[in-house]
């Protein structure tokens, strides 16, 4: 089924027949058609293609210009800022950054300050049942206290004795 635009175009061109043609036949549409024909004739008369005076010379100049540009393009020096070089530069910078981070920053200083002192006794036992081991686990010091030990003889530590 034809749309209104198709029927209207066919009517303007004189290709509409039968029932469709009759539906367009009234005064206002006829005026419309006359206006359209006037406009079309004006456009046909006013706009004409201009003839080039020396078309072969123009074509040869154009082709010579294209050839020159092609030659310049092939001689162009590769710059340092190509996309692959940017990508490799990025990878290199990333690796350098990681390397400097791990080598230059002392990791002992970024340790959690709360875990500065860690010496926790999980289990303590003595071989001699008479000796008692008491563990004094504190926040900043841990001492295993051995009780009931015999007094060490004065010559025990010979080298550094008083």
């Amino acid at each position, binding site marked *: 089924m034809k749309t209104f635009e198709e029927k209207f175009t066919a009517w303007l061109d004189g290709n509409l027949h039968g029932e469709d043609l009759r539906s367009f036949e009234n005064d206002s549409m006829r005026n419309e058609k006359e206006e359209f024909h006037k406009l079309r004739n004006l456009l046909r008369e006013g706009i004409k293609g201009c003839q080039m005076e020396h078309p072969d010379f123009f074509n040869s100049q154009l082709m010579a210009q294209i050839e020159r540009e092609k030659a310049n393009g*092939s001689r162009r020096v590769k710059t340092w800022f190509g996309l*692959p*070089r940017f990508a*490799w*530069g990025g*990878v*290199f910078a990333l*690796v*350098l950054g*990681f*390397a400097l981070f*791990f*080598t230059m920053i002392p990791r*002992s200083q970024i*340790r959690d300050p709360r*875990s*500065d*002192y*860690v*010496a*926790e*006794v*999980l*289990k*303590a*036992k*003595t*071989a*001699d049942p008479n*000796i008692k*081991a008491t*563990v*004094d686990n*504190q926040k*900043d*010091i*841990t*001492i*295993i*206290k*051995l009780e009931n*030990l*015999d*007094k*060490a003889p*004065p010559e*025990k*530590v*010979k*080298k*550094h*004795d*008083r």
Partner: protein
Amino acid sequence: MYRKPVNGWLGRGCQICCLAASLLFGLLAQALAEPEPEVWACLLYASNDKTQGELPASLSRYYERLHENLGYSAFRVVAQGETVLKPGQENWLKVGTDIKVLLYSVSRTGRGEYTMTLQVFDGGKPLVETQARVNRGSPLFIRGPAWHAGQLVLAVMIES
């Protein structure tokens, strides 16, 4: 159009970048591979002598706490020793002539701490055996027998 032939998929610039990156990764790996830690032990003579003595630099910040907990005001180094702590091995540490410390079942936790079994011998006789979790630079103190007018105290520490 003439195109410069490329060696595989890597140009010269890329090859230099790869070489530099490999070198940096090597340096990084070397920096990350920590050397085996050294364990140090120090036998202290704790007393209330007027001559104060001096704690080693690594223990000096524990003076107040030792004073509070042991009741002695003067600490003097009588003997000390150190050895490399090798995980999975028995590590013997000799402190002076009679005291020996055996460290074994050494393992390192994800937080950089060490768990180990520590056994103290006095003249070949086992004195105490303990399982402990320590980090580098944190000494574990063992109060030993009375000696002269004071007491012997053993400090064992993984050096930082």
